[in-house]
């Protein structure tokens, strides 16, 4: 391999197929004169623009269909000529330097074109150079060279993460790995599980209880997740009414008064609430509006007057005080009820964090656009993050996540996308150039993930996500079953 050209932070390297270089691989350009090395990453493999190639191809295409023949080449010169035809031009991005065996970002120098040598730089070596002092490794899978690939749990702590890729590429699988990895180090995790994919995390693929059985708790709204009005904070209730149930302003004001009167009377039951609305002196339209929301709350099954059945989040967190996950199973929950549950959960989380009842929580939100209200997006990035809610968005529709989320994301776990619009959306991430995202992600095989951000010290890396011995439940139900 030889260094050919440099433009901006892009270098072009001449290579041949037997160099066996692929997109995502790291190359080291070593200039022996200055004892410096340039770390570059291959973002595209193109054919080298060899002079005369067009003539070759024209000649070959002429012969393919109408002309047949033989080549008598006893000195085997043709193999060398074919070799030249297959020359590659590797388009690489400069990622950093190694100077005195220290990793650096100073790329203001230019290696010699004539003297520099170019060689492959295995990710394992790059990881060694990173000298990550973190002691909380989460095993993600392996590198191309079958080297164990880990990220540090510290790099998810206090961070905003995105896991995205098209359907069936392994997003949820990686999310589960991250969830279990965090649990292993005592983290508290809340999963907003839209499709009930995480509900069997506590079982092995054979259906047996696994090591996480006591640490993973599945909460299904209306079944084992019910709350009483007494547990509700007015602010959370108003959020539910306004954002999930679209209660108008005037009616909200009246509800606030009703709530305060119940508070004074210390009678927080659904029945009392219904009675209070019925007897409240207010405009009939307001009453109707309040009643319709009241029945929505009632029908959600999420609220109960039975104190014995009402669960407190504090208790759930107590159960996982040494680390665990609360899986909010939102499967088969209607859109409105989903929003009610999420409003309550997030409100409650903020409340608990505010009171320092929990230190911090890792929130995994699958397809968050289906239940997260508009104002929460900014909240998650700014306010909630400071309170200790560290969110990981998991989606196969990257355009449902706002641009500012991408810009502020600390880590992006990117699986394959073929649609250019999707790639364009993800490429807005501030932690990497758009060319890298577009070029590498487009060719990622299933279960391979391009990791961008702090978890890889801003050296984008491709990892093959390891298999997980849990019941994943993420499979789509099929009509045509395999008879074999």
């Amino acid at each position, binding site marked *: 391999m030889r260094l050919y050209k440099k433009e901006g932070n892009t270098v072009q390297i001449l290579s041949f197929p037997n160099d066996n270089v692929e997109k995502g691989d790291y190359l080291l350009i070593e200039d022996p004169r200055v004892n410096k090395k340039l770390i570059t990453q291959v973002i595209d493999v193109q054919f080298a623009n060899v002079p005369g190639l067009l*003539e070759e191809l024209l000649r070959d295409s002429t012969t393919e269909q109408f002309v*047949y023949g033989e080549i*008598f*080449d006893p*000195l085997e*010169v043709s193999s060398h000529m074919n070799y*030249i035809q297959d020359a590659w031009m590797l388009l690489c991005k400069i990622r950093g330097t190694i100077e005195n065996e220290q990793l650096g970002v100073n790329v203001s120098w230019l290696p010699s074109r004539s003297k520099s040598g170019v060689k492959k730089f295995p990710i394992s070596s790059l990881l060694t150079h990173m000298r990550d002092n973190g002691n909380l490794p989460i095993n993600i899978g392996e590198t191309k060279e079958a080297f164990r690939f880990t990220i540090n749990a510290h790099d998810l702590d206090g961070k905003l993460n995105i896991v995205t890729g098209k359907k069936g590429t392994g997003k949820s699988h990686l999310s589960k790995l991250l969830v279990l990895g965090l649990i292993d180090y005592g983290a508290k995790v809340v999963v907003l599980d839209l499709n009930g994919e995480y509900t069997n995390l506590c079982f092995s693929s054979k259906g047996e209880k696994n090591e996480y059985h006591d640490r993973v708790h599945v909460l299904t709204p209306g079944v084992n997740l019910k709350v009483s009005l007494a547990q509700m904070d007015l602010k959370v209730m108003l959020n539910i009414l306004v954002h999930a149930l679209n209660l108008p302003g005037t009616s909200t004001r009246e509800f606030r008064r009703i709530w305060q009167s119940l508070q004074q009377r210390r009678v927080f039951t659904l029945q009392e609430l219904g009675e209070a609305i019925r007897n409240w002196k207010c405009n009939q339209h307001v009453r109707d509006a309040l009643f319709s929301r009241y029945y929505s709350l009632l029908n959600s099954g999420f609220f109960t007057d039975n104190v014995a059945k009402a669960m407190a989040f504090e208790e759930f967190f107590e159960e996982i005080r040494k680390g665990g996950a609360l899986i909010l199973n939102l499967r088969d929950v209607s859109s409105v009820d989903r929003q009610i549950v999420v409003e309550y959960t997030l409100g409650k989380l903020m409340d608990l964090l505010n009171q320092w009842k929990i230190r911090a929580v890792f929130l995994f939100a699958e397809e968050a656009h289906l239940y997260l209200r508009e104002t929460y997006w900014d909240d998650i990035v700014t306010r909630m993050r400071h309170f200790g809610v560290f969110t990981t968005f998991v989606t196969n529709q990257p355009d449902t996540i706002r641009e500012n989320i991408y810009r502020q994301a600390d880590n992006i776990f990117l699986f394959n996308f073929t649609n250019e619009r999707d790639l364009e959306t993800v490429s807005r991430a501030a932690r990497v150039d758009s060319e890298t995202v577009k070029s590498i992600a487009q060719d990622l095989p299933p279960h391979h993930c391009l990791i961008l951000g702090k978890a890889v010290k801003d050296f984008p890396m491709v990892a093959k996500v390891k298999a997980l011995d849990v019941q994943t439940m993420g499979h789509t139900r099929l009509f045509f079953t395999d008879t074999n």
Partner: protein
Amino acid sequence: MVNLLIEQLHYTTTLRYNFPQSLEDLQLPQKFIELSLRSMRNMESEYFQPNEMTFNQPATENFEDATPVLGTHGSFTIESIPLKPLLGDTPVAAVDISSIRIGETETGMLCAIRGAIVWKEKGRYKYLRLGPFPFHITEENKKEIYNLFRHHYFEASEDASAPSLINMQTRMGNLLERWLQLGISCSAHDSIILWDGSLTAGTADSPVKVISQLLEIARNRLNTVLAFSKTTNLRLLGHRLTDLAEKSKPPCLLQISGFPLPSGPVFSLGNVYVAKLTPGICSFRLDIDKKVPRERVIEAVQKLLGSDFLIQSYPETLRLAHIFSTFTATEVIGIQRCIAQQYGLKIIARPNVRRLLFGPFGKDFEG
């Protein structure tokens, strides 16, 4: 001599159409391959300076048009011969070679030669590419190479003085071309054989005796040699020969007769025609063996019209032979790499003196 060559080529005396069916039928003499290898092995250089790539350069020696200028006085006639394609499946074969300078060593020059034979058979084109064969030619070995070549191909008894180093590439190319033409003449029967160039004889590597024998072998096997020249400097009354056919209705041949025969060592063994075989702007100088009767000449060209594709008056078979022999830039780089790798030569780039002195004004093609 002919018998010996026939033996070398495993020529069978069957009278039916017999183009080489496989490599066994048309083997290069081992001597040729050995010569290439030996010349390369004898390289004592450590360095190799690749040639700056300028392709499709005209040969430094070009005998294609070495025929003296046709008379500008005297009486001559130009006869237009209208042609009708004779439909059929007459076999058509074409031969072409290319040679290219690959680079320089401390002691000599490196060149490569490649030949191609294309034949049309039952509506399909087949080809045989021979080479490339690299040669390292030095002042020390050039005479040996040249004479070995001549002896082997043409059985020339007397040693000829080898041309200057710079002309060796062209000469060796011509010698290979003659050998391939001989091979085709010996193996084909009742066919049309297309040559690239003219039937000029009397030059060092196209001796009259050799070319006469080539044509004779072809004639004896009922083959007709048609030699197409892509370019010509021949002029008649100041006009370029090929321009004479501008107003002629294709397909036709223009036969020029009545001009005084040239005298001297270099002359053509063929009658010179202008061929305008298809509509379009191109017409070509076409040399056809003088000893072939006029009726057979016309019949041969008409058979060519009926058996081969012609684009801009140029036969496809010959076009393909040219394409298959020509070196592209990629191939030259490949050969340079092969030589550097197999013989452990270090590639160096000497400064271009013109560029050094004149910068962007130092054009390589300037004298």
